[in-house]
């Protein structure tokens, strides 16, 4: 077989594969670089964002959420909590009314999330995995694929 044709076929396959990964980017859950936490499971991330896990030892966990107009929010709620935005909002409305917790603090963008997490030892947030590169003061403890 012509080597040139083989190279074209392999290149095309590689391109298609990278394109398919670009359609479903990974979500990175990040904590402060000084946090004692080195790894989180999806279940633990879910418990943090639904307010049932609020302490890491003696440190109060401070979760940061993203604004509902950010596509990553919908993806994070779907992948980690298995619910939609409306259900999540109703859940926290009820929980706050019951006096059973404080909802995650909402930030406008991933950049704001990274800044907030870098400032507080108990902070946790989520961003696209591709946005972690170059960020300071945070570390990735969980990567969530589709």
């Amino acid at each position, binding site marked *: 077989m012509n080597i040139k044709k083989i190279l074209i076929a392999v290149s095309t396959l590689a391109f298609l594969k990278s394109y398919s990964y670009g359609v479903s980017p990974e979500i990175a859950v990040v904590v402060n670089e000084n946090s004692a936490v080195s790894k989180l499971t999806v279940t633990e991330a879910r418990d943090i964002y639904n307010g*049932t896990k609020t302490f890491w030892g003696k440190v109060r966990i401070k979760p940061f959420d993203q604004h509902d107009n950010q596509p990553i929010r919908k993806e994070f709620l779907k992948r980690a909590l298995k619910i939609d935005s409306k259900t999540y909002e109703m859940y926290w409305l009820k929980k*706050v009314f019951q*006096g059973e917790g404080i909802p995650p603090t909402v930030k406008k963008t991933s950049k704001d999330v990274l800044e907030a997490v870098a400032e507080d030892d108990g902070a946790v947030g989520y961003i696209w995995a591709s946005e972690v590169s170059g960020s300071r003061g945070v570390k990735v403890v969980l990567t969530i694929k589709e």
Partner: protein
Amino acid sequence: MKKQIRLLLTIMLFLFSSMSNVRAYDLKGFADITYNKSTKNNLENKNGGFGLGQYDLYVSYPLDDRIDILGELVIESPGDGEFVVDLERLQIGYTFCDALKVRTGRIHNILGYWNTSYHHGAYLQTSAGRPSFLEFEDEGGILPVHTVGIWASGRINTNFTDIDYGVTVANGSQIRRDSLGANAALDPNSIGDNDRNKPVSFNFTLAPDSLPGFGIGLSGSNGHVQGFTFGILTEELSQTILGWHAFYTGKPVEILGEYFTIKNENRLIAATPSFTSKAYYVQAGYNVANLVTPYVRYEQVDVKSVAGVSPDPYFSALGSANSFRTIGGVRVDISSRSALKAEIRSLNVKNAEGKSQEYVAQWSFAF
């Protein structure tokens, strides 16, 4: 009365605004406007009419990493054209860890599921109204839905299920009548207790990991209830309440159910039998496209009576009789913070009240 309301609101706003970092949007609330037409022979709803529901304002705020407060005011009309301000909840709590939080103040009684999940927030509940036996004390409710005391609660994670628990030690209720000796209602004794007895209440709910949205549990309370007429002790009861609750709130199906037994023993008259009455409901709804939820509910109250003896003295004092009610309705979530509801209610009370139908439309919202 209006001056008193304005004064109270001013004081509350001042107190909240004097706390550092309290912003306007930390004050949250619920409200509803309802149209009601009933075939009952009462003036309020016989001709059909619009009514303001409860205007519920609350603040839930962390003072620091472990201490938080909650305050809830409800402005409502008792039906005489005036409006009153009720301090429904005022509590402060300390979180030791996820498995233990201790609170004190005026709280929702932890019996069952509905009372702590929905309470004054009509928007939160699928239906327009509460099950009749879970009505608030000043609206004919037969269970103590508020209490003042100490509350320990928490969540324990196991490999298979979460366990939510709560235990309270609080003031008991009393049966209070008006100056004419009529209109008996439960009073949760918010500013002091009329006797030494402090009921202990508990609630345990299992929420299995394998079925998100599902919970099943047990609750109960044991204490004394005294009743007074013109300041004279007319009822004294030992009361034990036991309840079972189960719920599934995953979409699209919602199913709720609670079953209570209320055992009352008369301490005023020796050698009288005890009475164990029952009250329960079951409700089911189906959510379509995150927009429309048709639902049905059946409720029943069975008041125990013993041949040759008066019916249960507790229920007699509160004017509650055997009854059952069937409700069919639909909820439409027209926005993320407001819902329209319409219901047809069919009530049958085994006293002079008899049978009646009620037609209800409600616009409820949260802010």
